[in-house]
């Protein structure tokens, strides 16, 4: 320990110093001792930071990838709902047209019944349109996700600077994990793959690697 070494170190010539000089030297020694303790605490803190910093800097690219996937999946889901509501609207238009034709050819109580049905079918036009417009939430999600990705990239850059400044080494895969086998490695590859969306064949490979199918 740096502190112990400092305390144990003998500086020659103490006997030659006057009382005032010795006091000054003791005072400087005490201050140096405090400083050394402080440096020890900082060194220990940096050592403790190593694990969370490296694991966080490892995980951030995955977090970004998850966010991109979230955006893409909501976009695909929104298009699906849009297609279905468009189909419903086309059907509704056909039904409305046929009911209007039918109304011309019927008489008596049937006219009133047809008009009631027509009113309901027409009201559905507004409802379908509002379902459509409500899906604009997807755009808002995409914008928020883009902002989150920007923030995450900034955090990652700052962490990388920290890693470089304090000389914290990034853990390379495999160290101390040899007993976890190929399944672990596949999971690692999955994590670092560009997309985080699971494909069924990859799922099956990993499951079979763990003896499950």
């Amino acid at each position: 320990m740096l502190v112990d070494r400092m305390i144990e170190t003998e500086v020659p010539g103490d006997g030659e110093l006057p009382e005032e000089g010795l006091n000054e030297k003791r005072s400087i020694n005490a201050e140096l001792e405090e400083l050394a303790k402080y440096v020890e605490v900082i060194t220990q803190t940096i050592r403790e930071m190593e694990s969370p910093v490296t694991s966080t800097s490892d995980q951030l690219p995955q977090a970004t990838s998850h966010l991109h996937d979230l955006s893409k999946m909501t976009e695909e889901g929104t298009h699906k709902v849009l297609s279905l509501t468009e189909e419903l609207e086309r059907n509704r238009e056909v039904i409305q047209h046929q009911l209007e034709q039918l109304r011309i050819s019927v008489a008596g109580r049937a006219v009133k019944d047809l008009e009631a049905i027509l009113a309901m079918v027409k009201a559905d036009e507004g409802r379908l349109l509002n379902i459509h417009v409500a899906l604009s939430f997807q755009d808002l999600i995409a914008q928020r996700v883009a902002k989150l990705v920007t923030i995450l990239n900034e955090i990652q850059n700052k962490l990388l600077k920290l890693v470089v400044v304090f000389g914290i080494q990034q853990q390379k895969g495999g160290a101390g994990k040899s007993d976890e086998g190929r399944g672990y490695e596949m999971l690692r590859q999955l994590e670092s793959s560009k997309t985080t969306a699971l494909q069924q064949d990859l799922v099956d490979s990993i499951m079979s690697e763990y003896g499950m199918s």
Partner: protein
Amino acid sequence: MIDTGMKVLVVDDMSTMRRIVKNVLRQIGFSDIMEAENGQDALTKLKAGGFGLVVSDWNMPVMQGIELLRAVRADAELKTLPFLMVTGEAQKENLIVAVQAGVSNYVVKPFTAEVLQGKLEKIFANVQPAKTS
């Protein structure tokens, strides 16, 4: 009364939003609707001529909606073109910037079909559409 026979340009980087806005415009009665993915793409299409209305997003890559608006207002041929901003940018500062840049009206997402139609009616009640060729 809106002249629904005019050509409309819908500008948004999100394909879902372009589809939603197009469907609302169709429901209002517009049938001649074109799309652009960003401000630059939109400006190229607008300069080709024939448009009577622009409905644009704010946040887009390449060229943002506000830059497109400024470019439109700076262009002698396009400067009176009605320009509706449809955006998730609900901050007051952005609204002021858009008004100062000459936006015709401003719709905040998420919106309803009635709100979009109401804003278009206000635009065409106050603004004489530009005749571009």
